[in-house]
């Protein structure tokens, strides 16, 4: 009976990243494993694809990594599964305490911006876990990107703990601690290498493709619309090149522009996206021959509309970068939105004139 209960407890309560328990002066805490299970790898991939980004939070609280003692460092993290997994992997070989805050399953930086990774949450989590009794020193290492939400002076005033803002990346933690809580310029600066940009593109393509069926329906409707009704054949033959151009624009804005970001001239994301949109159009246009190219009205409408579409989609990538500020994006939108709306409007007028001519009314 007892054994069965224990088993039930283990099955139900112990998360897969826990390898055991450890007793401290303030009660027992879970010891985390630095190894990734197959589920962790699969989860990391899925979270990048956006399939289940948020619904796998880690329980907030204090954890032990390795064999920490009362003198060991305390590292703070968010309860976003992916960040937590990366952190516990990077902590391999270190003996530290890990304090996980409740950020509703969101990563440190975003949570700090939203106010869930905050001074108050840190202080209340420190007192809930009786951190002051678990360790005999008064230092705490907060991820640098958490500084957006944590006021170090207030933490010190209210808890006595001095906040050290650690490196940007978890992988630099061991050398940061070894160097006596000092970091090099590299460790405290965020970068945005190509691999990182590529990893982020599925989350750009997905939302764009979710809206694509609406665009496709509209295109097929317009081209299928004939005086005698909606004809499937003319919808397909007339609409197909436009659908292909639409897909090209999504690819240009959501994939090519992010990947080639620093190599595309100009700082504005809207301009970058427009340039890549034009280049992609140049590449695919010859494939469509007379169906689009032979019709000057359709040709003009395509050249006005599709690069603008790439530009708009590329502008969305500002949300995934780590170097764009609100003032800059606002400026782009202020100029961009009226332009996008008028370009779409003008293209629509061209398309309507084309249809009217097709019906022989002009």
């Amino acid at each position, binding site marked *: 009976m007892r054994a069965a209960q224990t088993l039930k407890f283990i099955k139900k309560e112990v998360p897969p990243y826990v390898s055991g328990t450890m007793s401290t002066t303030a009660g027992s805490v879970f010891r985390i494993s630095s190894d990734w299970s197959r589920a962790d790898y699969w989860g990391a991939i899925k979270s990048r694809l*956006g399939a289940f*980004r*948020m619904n796998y939070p880690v329980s907030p609280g204090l954890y032990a990594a390795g064999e920490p003692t009362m003198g060991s460092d305390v590292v703070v993290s968010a309860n976003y599964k992916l960040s937590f997994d990366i952190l516990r992997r990077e902590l391999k070989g270190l003996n530290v305490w890990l304090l996980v805050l409740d950020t*509703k399953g*969101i*990563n440190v*930086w*975003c949570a*700090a*911006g*939203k106010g869930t990774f905050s001074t108050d949450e840190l202080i209340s989590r420190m007192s809930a876990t009786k951190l002051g009794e678990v360790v005999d020193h008064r230092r705490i290492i907060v991820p*640098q*990107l958490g*500084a*957006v*939400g*944590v*006021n*170090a*002076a207030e933490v010190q005033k209210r808890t006595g703990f001095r906040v050290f*803002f650690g490196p*940007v990346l978890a992988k630099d933690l061991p050398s940061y601690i070894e160097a006596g809580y000092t970091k090099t*310029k590299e460790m*405290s*600066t*965020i970068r*945005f290498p190509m691999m990182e940009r590529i990893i982020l593109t599925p*989350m*750009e393509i*997905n*939302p764009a493709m979710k809206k694509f069926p609406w665009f496709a329906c509209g295109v097929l409707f317009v081209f299928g619309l004939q005086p005698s009704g909606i004809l499937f054949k003319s919808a397909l033959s007339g609409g197909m090149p436009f659908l292909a151009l639409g897909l090209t624009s999504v690819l240009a804005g959501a994939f090519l522009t992010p990947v080639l*970001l*620093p190599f595309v001239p100009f*700082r*504005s*994301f809207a301009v970058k996206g427009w340039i890549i949109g034009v280049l992609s159009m140049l590449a695919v246009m010859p494939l469509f021959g007379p169906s689009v190219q032979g019709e000057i009205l359709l040709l003009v409408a395509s050249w006005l509309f599709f690069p603008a579409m790439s530009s708009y989609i590329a*502008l*969305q990538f*500002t*949300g*995934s*970068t*780590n*170097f*764009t*500020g*609100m*003032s*800059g*994006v*606002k*400026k*782009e*939108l202020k100029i961009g*939105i009226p332009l996008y709306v008028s370009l779409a409007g003008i293209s629509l007028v061209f398309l309507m004139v084309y249809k009217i001519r097709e019906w022989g009314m002009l």
Partner: protein
Amino acid sequence: MKYLLHVTTLQYSSDKCAGCGRCAEVCPRGVFEMRDKRAMIMDRDLCMECGACAKNCDFSALSVKAGVGCAAAIITGLLTGSEPTCGCGDRAASNCC
């Protein structure tokens, strides 16, 4: 990589700086450097208005209108008349972060 020039709302009054070095410690863009026990702005245009420096400046030497540099969030903010916030919490909203 650097974004648009001359747009950041970052303001710094060096006369209030006490030289604690927190701004240089927290800025992920390398905007600040400590020179002669005072913070110096090396390149204002690197700033992305995250607000970490102002949040941790105990001497009110720094101010910045912090916010998300995210088109989807700003458009949503304009449409709803609210301040732009990151939609990371609810899946229906933007795709940022």
